[in-house]
């Protein structure tokens, strides 16, 4: 039977058997199918029904991103006719910033290769060559890292091609090289962590590390800027290197990624070849070791032993709500995902904290920075925490069958969210109060509003889920994600305007924040 004369079903069957079982192509087809379905899941928010409306909305959104990038680059980014060290430096630092985000994602993806148990036990129990499967999975993780970063960078690259010529399309090659090198570095870091800290702890440490790397560069640039110039502008690091005399010469190899992105063929070939070669070599060296670690993870007892002294406290008499609060706070404390997310929020509080420290004794400018940053951080943190307590309940039937009024259980969970938000925010707020007491008090009110707003949105969109599905919470409901994010922005804006005395203008961001909660209420799932 030829493929041309076959029916669609038969053609599908032929395609399925195109690769010999256990061959590289066969595994690659399987992995590509899984990765594609995961990508579709993320893009569709987990909905199974495909609709033209959703596709059109996605295209419109992509179009808007392109328009925004084109507008910003056209107005604010003059492209020199010949590359200068300064231009290459700006391009390199911007690229490095994007690469750190890729590295954070790659680190998480690479460690998932041995911790995602979905089908690993099946594959390990089969006669399939483990090293080949894991090697392929690491390679797929590099591709997926590239794709995810591409979602953010495609509009920028396309806009550069529109504004300054099609030579910028070669930046796609650099994007792939970035994904490959991020995966290579992640392989090295993961192996080092596995060797130093063991298979049980590496996952948590890698998650925390990914959070630090993801936020680290941006925050580092701000910290350098604040300490040197007293400004928290994100581009301050560029200003430090403004003097072109300090920069390497135009012919230096350090500029090759930037020159490759701007359309020079030789640097592009070199950058892509080197990054691919490094990735293939890293996979070749590490795949077998990853296989051994995956096996060790299966064998290792997973339950961490908890300090026995705690047993005195757990039987302490308290109200039912008290028991629920203690349970929620204990679970939050032991959640590695939450740990990394909280750490990220706390890291973002470092620049304003430094600003506070460098401006001790003066309230000028401090309130304007601290009020919105603290409010925004609290709102974002509360959203994650509220999802964990309201939706991520691992024993919903236990709570539902307990002799506790549903209102009591809900109140205890919300209280746990407020307590957990208060812990990282309070020290900064106290420091703020020393500099500007009234502004600190105002900020406290907006922190409470942002925390409450995010919690209400999560309450409206609560859906029973396992806590381990935390990373998918943002794909579960796009409406909840966007209303939560824009709500936090609204409260932060209102906080900034209030502390600067622009009370009349405060109504606009407050209306946005309240409107987000209202929109969430109108669009909440029914039934």
């Amino acid at each position: 039977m030829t493929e041309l004369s076959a029916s669609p079903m038969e053609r599908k069957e032929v395609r399925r058997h195109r690769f010999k079982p256990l061959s590289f192509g066969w595994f690659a087809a399987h992995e590509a199918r899984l990765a594609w379905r995961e990508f579709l899941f993320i893009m569709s928010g987990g909905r199974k029904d495909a609709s033209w409306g959703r596709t059109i909305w996605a295209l419109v959104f992509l179009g808007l991103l392109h328009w925004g990038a084109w507008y910003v680059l056209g107005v604010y980014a003059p492209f020199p006719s010949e590359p200068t060290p300064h231009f290459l430096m700006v391009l390199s630092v911007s690229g490095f910033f994007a690469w750190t985000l890729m590295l954070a994602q790659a680190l998480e993806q690479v460690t998932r290769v041995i911790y995602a148990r979905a089908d690993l036990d099946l594959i390990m129990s089969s006669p399939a060559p483990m090293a080949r499967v894991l090697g392929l999975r690491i390679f797929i993780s590099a591709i997926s890292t590239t794709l995810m970063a591409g979602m953010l960078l495609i509009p920028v690259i396309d806009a550069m091609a529109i504004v300054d010529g099609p030579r910028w399309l070669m930046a796609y090659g650099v994007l792939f090289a970035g994904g490959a090198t991020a995966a290579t570095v992640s392989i090295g870091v993961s192996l080092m962590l596995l060797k130093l800290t063991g298979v049980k702890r590496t996952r948590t440490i890698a998650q925390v590390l990914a959070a630090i790397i993801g936020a680290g560069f941006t925050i580092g640039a701000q910290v350098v800027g604040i300490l040197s110039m007293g400004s928290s502008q994100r581009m301050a690091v560029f200003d430090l290197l403004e003097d072109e005399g300090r920069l390497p010469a135009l012919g230096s190899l350090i500029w090759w990624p930037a020159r490759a992105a701007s359309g020079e063929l030789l640097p592009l070939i070199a950058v892509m070849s080197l990054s691919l070669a490094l990735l293939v070599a890293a996979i070749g060296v590490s795949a077998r070791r990853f296989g051994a670690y995956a096996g060790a993870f299966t064998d290792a007892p997973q339950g961490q032993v908890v300090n026995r002294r705690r047993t005195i406290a757990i039987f302490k008499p308290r109200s039912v709500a008290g028991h629920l609060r203690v349970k929620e706070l204990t679970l939050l404390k032991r959640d590695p995902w939450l740990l990394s997310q909280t750490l990220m929020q706390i890291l973002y509080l470092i620049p304003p904290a430094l600003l506070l420290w460098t401006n001790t004794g003066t309230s000028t400018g401090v309130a304007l920075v601290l009020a919105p940053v603290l409010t925004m951080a609290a709102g974002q943190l509360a959203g994650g925490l509220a999802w964990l307590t309201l939706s991520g309940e691992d024993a919903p039937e236990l709570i539902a069958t307990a002799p506790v009024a549903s209102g009591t259980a809900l109140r205890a969970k919300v209280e746990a969210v407020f307590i957990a938000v208060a812990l990282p925010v309070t020290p900064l707020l106290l420091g703020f109060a020393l500099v500007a007491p009234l502004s600190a008090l105002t900020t406290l009110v907006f922190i409470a509003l942002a925390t409450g707003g995010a919690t209400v949105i999560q309450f409206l969109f609560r859906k029973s889920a396992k806590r381990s599905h935390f990373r998918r919470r943002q794909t579960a409901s796009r409406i909840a994600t966007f209303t939560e994010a824009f709500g936090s922005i609204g409260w932060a804006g209102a906080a900034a305007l209030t502390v600067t005395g622009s009370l009349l203008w405060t109504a606009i961001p407050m209306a946005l924040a309240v409107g987000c909660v209202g929109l969430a209420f109108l669009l909440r799932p029914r039934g």
Partner: protein
Amino acid sequence: MAAVSALEIHALAKSYDGKPAVSGLDLTVRPGEFYALLGPNGAGKTTTLRMVTGLLKPDSGAISVWGVDALNDPIAAKRLIAWVPDEPMIYDKLTPLEYVAFVAGLWGVEGAEAEREAEALIDLVGLTAQKHQRCEGLSKGMRQKVALCGALVHAPKLIILDEPLTGLDASSSRLVKDVLKARVAAGATVIMTTHILEVAERMADRIGVIAGGRLMAEGTFDELRERAGHAGSTLEEVFLEIVAGSEVAA
């Protein structure tokens, strides 16, 4: 005055998308009884028990737990009940002792009494060595034992278990059965669904067979055997005959 039933269900009905899962079910379980609820897949067993525990709201009917109207006063009814589903509902990041302490707190058992009871139960099910270890590292059997400890820590008068022996090894299964027998001997009432008919045959005081959301037969094993007209038959043969009869009637 007639003795209060441990569980009394009258004309209970529940539909999903217009398709009846439970249709006018009447069921009475006596105090201190070990009651086995049997039925084929989709017969309505779990739906019935979830309505009793307050997890599902019935479309119509009445449920009374030790004389407490479970639909009008669910909190009072829940104080008397323990629910053990087929998949243990425990927290991965808590230790067995912390989990049992938390459940004790939910049911208002506190302080020294809770600690004594929790420790005793954990020792009883053989989890002493794991009591300070997070539950994420425990096997399915161990997790089921932790869930059972949580269910028993507040000394419930009515213990409802949905397929509690699924996936347990022989010794764990034996242990769970012994614990349940001891509770019945101490005056508690146990209602258990199971597909392991041998367990129902050996342990249950009375057996109810449910199919198509209705109670098709009820009685002791001997009464069911007599009804089926096979004096020397096993429960499996009796059960299959009752279920086959219900399918013909439907």
